[in-house]
């Protein structure tokens, strides 16, 4: 089985690829100008930030970088394409001949190309409305060779790609759009415009089953383009194609050639490799580390920061506790320090402790963690030994805080943990009186 992908990713620039229109989502047709509307006489102006971003991606995918890249016009008529041609790249693509490693295998990257997104079409009854805000959004298209040979490999490929792009500042979670080419036997079937990772996997699964079934029944598989229906979770024929589409590519002479030397770009982080390095010589598996850092540069930074002082297992445990109970997007160093320290000292870190640490109350408090039986025993002993305080409480309920403090502090317990077990006991005493 051969699977090849053409993945489209939106680049995180402030302005569009060929004009200075904003990319902020807004009212339909509010972020437009003569250039992204393709008005007569307008000319494209290449956005350097988009080129730098694409350069980072091409470099991360081990592509050879064109010293002088160029663009082509891809001509077709569709209402979302204001110039009736899309400015994209072919032979002059910024990157080519690269690869992405998944496990022991290399999936070859044929091309990394920069192109503009068309406008967005909105169906409205019998009419189609056009929102040109999206027109001219910078995209990168990553074209692979048909080197992927199973659903598992495709998952792995998308996972790694997503992680690489994440560390380059490109989030593809929702934005990703792909054409999936699948040949179970000889004939290539293209599923076009699949949106989102989930749909990519599902469309692949459906096609593998459909094509396998057809082969089993001795049917011929047609060379065709299919579409993916998210609701039905199936693919349908869009058009049969005997030969490739005719786009009449021609050199985009409005942009001439663009030198890429001397441009700045971000260097890649390969989370799988980093995880292997980090896990080496520890009792943590590289897979565990990898899962944590794949899409989380904050965790990676914290691991690197704390690595010399604490064991990897404690750090990861601490990060997991914070991710579960903490409130901030980025973990505050001070809070995480305390958490990992507690873990290193063999203490459990309950939610309350993290809440306290976060509000800056008493970062150094170390709370003991007792089983419910141990805790109940402790509370019952205290209640039995201090009848006058209990009597006081029955008259003035707010004195309960004093009782809680008296139990919690000497035992290194969190007041809230004490309160949770103490209240039912006090209630039972009150009822029996």
């Amino acid at each position: 089985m051969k699977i090849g992908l053409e993945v489209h990713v939106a680049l995180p620039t402030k302005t569009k690829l060929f004009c200075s229109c904003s990319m902020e989502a807004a009212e339909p047709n509010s972020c437009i100008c003569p250039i992204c509307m393709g008005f007569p006489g307008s000319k494209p102006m290449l956005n350097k930030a988009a080129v730098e971003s694409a350069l980072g991606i091409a470099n991360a995918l081990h592509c050879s970088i064109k010293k002088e890249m160029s663009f082509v016009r891809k001509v077709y008529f569709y209402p979302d394409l204001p110039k009736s041609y899309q400015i994209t790249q072919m032979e002059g693509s910024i990157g080519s001949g690269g690869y992405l490693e998944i496990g022991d295998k290399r999936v070859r990257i044929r091309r990394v190309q920069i192109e503009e997104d068309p406008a967005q079409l909105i169906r409205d009854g019998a009419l189609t409305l056009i929102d040109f805000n999206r027109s001219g959004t910078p995209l990168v298209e990553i074209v692979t060779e048909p080197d992927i040979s199973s659903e598992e490999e495709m998952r792995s490929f998308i996972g790694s790609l997503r992680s690489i792009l994440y560390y380059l500042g490109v989030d593809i979670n929702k934005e990703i759009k792909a054409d999936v080419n699948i040949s179970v036997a000889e004939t290539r079937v293209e599923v076009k415009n699949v949106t989102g990772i989930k749909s990519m996997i599902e469309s692949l699964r459906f096609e593998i089953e459909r094509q396998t079934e057809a082969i089993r029944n001795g049917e011929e598989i047609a060379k065709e383009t299919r579409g993916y229906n998210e609701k039905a979770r199936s693919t349908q024929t869009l058009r049969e194609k005997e030969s490739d589409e005719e786009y009449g590519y021609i050199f985009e002479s409005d942009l001439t050639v663009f030198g890429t030397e001397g441009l700045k770009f971000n260097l890649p982080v390969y989370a799988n490799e980093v995880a292997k390095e980090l896990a080496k010589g520890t009792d943590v598996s590289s897979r565990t580390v990898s899962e944590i850092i794949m899409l989380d540069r904050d965790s990676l930074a914290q691991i690197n920061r704390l690595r010399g002082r604490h064991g990897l297992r404690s750090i990861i445990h601490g990060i997991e506790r914070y991710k579960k109970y903490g409130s901030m997007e980025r973990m505050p160093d001070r809070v995480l320090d305390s958490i990992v320290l507690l873990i290193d000292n063999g203490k459990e870190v309950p939610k309350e402790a993290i809440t306290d640490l976060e509000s800056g109350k008493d970062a150094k408090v170390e709370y003991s963690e007792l089983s419910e039986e141990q805790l109940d025993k402790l509370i019952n002993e205290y209640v039995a030994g201090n009848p006058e305080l209990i009597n006081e409480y029955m008259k003035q309920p707010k004195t309960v805080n004093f009782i809680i403090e008296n139990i919690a502090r000497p035992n290194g317990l969190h007041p809230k943990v004490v309160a949770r077990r103490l209240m039912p006991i006090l209630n039972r005493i009150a009822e029996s009186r």
Partner: protein
Amino acid sequence: MASYIREFNEIEKPKDYYEGLIEGIEKLNGTYDAFNVINKSARTGFLFSTKANICVKGFETDAGSKMLKGYVPPFNATVADRMLAKKDFSFIGVTNMDEFGFGTFGINTEIPAKNAFDSEYVAGGSSSGSAVATAMIKYHVSVAESTGGSIAAPAALNGVVGFTPTYGSVSRYGLIDYANSLDKIGVMARSSEDARIVFDRIRGRDDYDTTCSVEKISSEKKSRIFVMDSMLSKADQKVRGAFERLLDRLSRDYSVEHVDSATMEKAIAPYYIIAMAEASTNLAKYTGYKYGAMSQDFYKQYNEFFTDAREGFGIEAKRRILLGTFIRSESVKDKYYAKALAIRSMIMHEMDRLLKDGYILSPTLPITAPKIADARKLSPVENYAMDLFTIPPNLGGFPHISFPYDYIDGMPLGAQLVTGHGNDYAILDFVKEWESSFNYTYKHNLGEL
């Protein structure tokens, strides 16, 4: 006469000068159709017009096409911005042209402009109206555009100076594209100095046009003039005779050398292949739902909608869209387009070598102005052959200037001088020198003081 612009600024104008002049222009335009739009509110400075493919905010700019009927650009072309930056120039109007620049005679549009010397004759194209307006009005320049000879040809037939600068020295932002790698904005004027003043005003880098990168312009005078004999033999006898007389006069000051070129005379085919291929992509945007001629019926399937919306192109535009689309198709691309690019680069290389040593001089057109009725009878290939001399410098982006040098039967003749990239001032200087001993003849002198 050195500069009409300078002369105009020094002379006292009567109070109602502009009102009278505009009235005169409107009247004459009834016969010659030089202008598509006349700006009646022009009241200060020296008049300039723009070809109908250069966007001027607020004025209908239809590029001579029904597809853009009623299109009023919401922005200025960079050249319009630069002309209007001070109050010393005033915009007088939009000039007539062949549809999208497709033509040598100015007749590929609904109402063609007529030759300023005789309205039965063609004005030349595609910047037909710019040349006629310049020949009609004494104090006026026109910002025009050339892809394969569209400034030189009409300038020659109307007896004015037509200057086409080095490709990339003047911004094309706001120029409605014909063929992006060939289009150049230039100037028509009654004197070389005026052309230079306007050139200096509009040229120079522009962030809005990536290809506009030529900043330095030189004036390197050459003492040798090259004449291509084999190409000259294709001109008609009258033109050849007059041109020989011109060479005789020039041989007093220059070394006139007859050379042969292996590639230059083969320029027509690669030019039309490249121009049509590019044009067919540029014309794809006219689909009747964004600007210009708008479709009335939106309840159609896409294919049907686009087919109907694109009916409004003229016959020559349709021919170039079809041929250009064919040329770009995968199965023949190498056979035509790739080969054309290769020949283009050979021609550029050969001309570049030659132009280091001297100028290339030729008649601008191989014939004198034909009557409009006769020009209409020519086949497309006969039409394209008229661009024999103007295509090589245009294909290579070399600066060239057409200047009047003789009159046959009362109709002007133009010669075309070519120099190397960036040496634009040299040919402007050459023509200035020529003008000092040549008497221009005009039939009209609107606005004369």
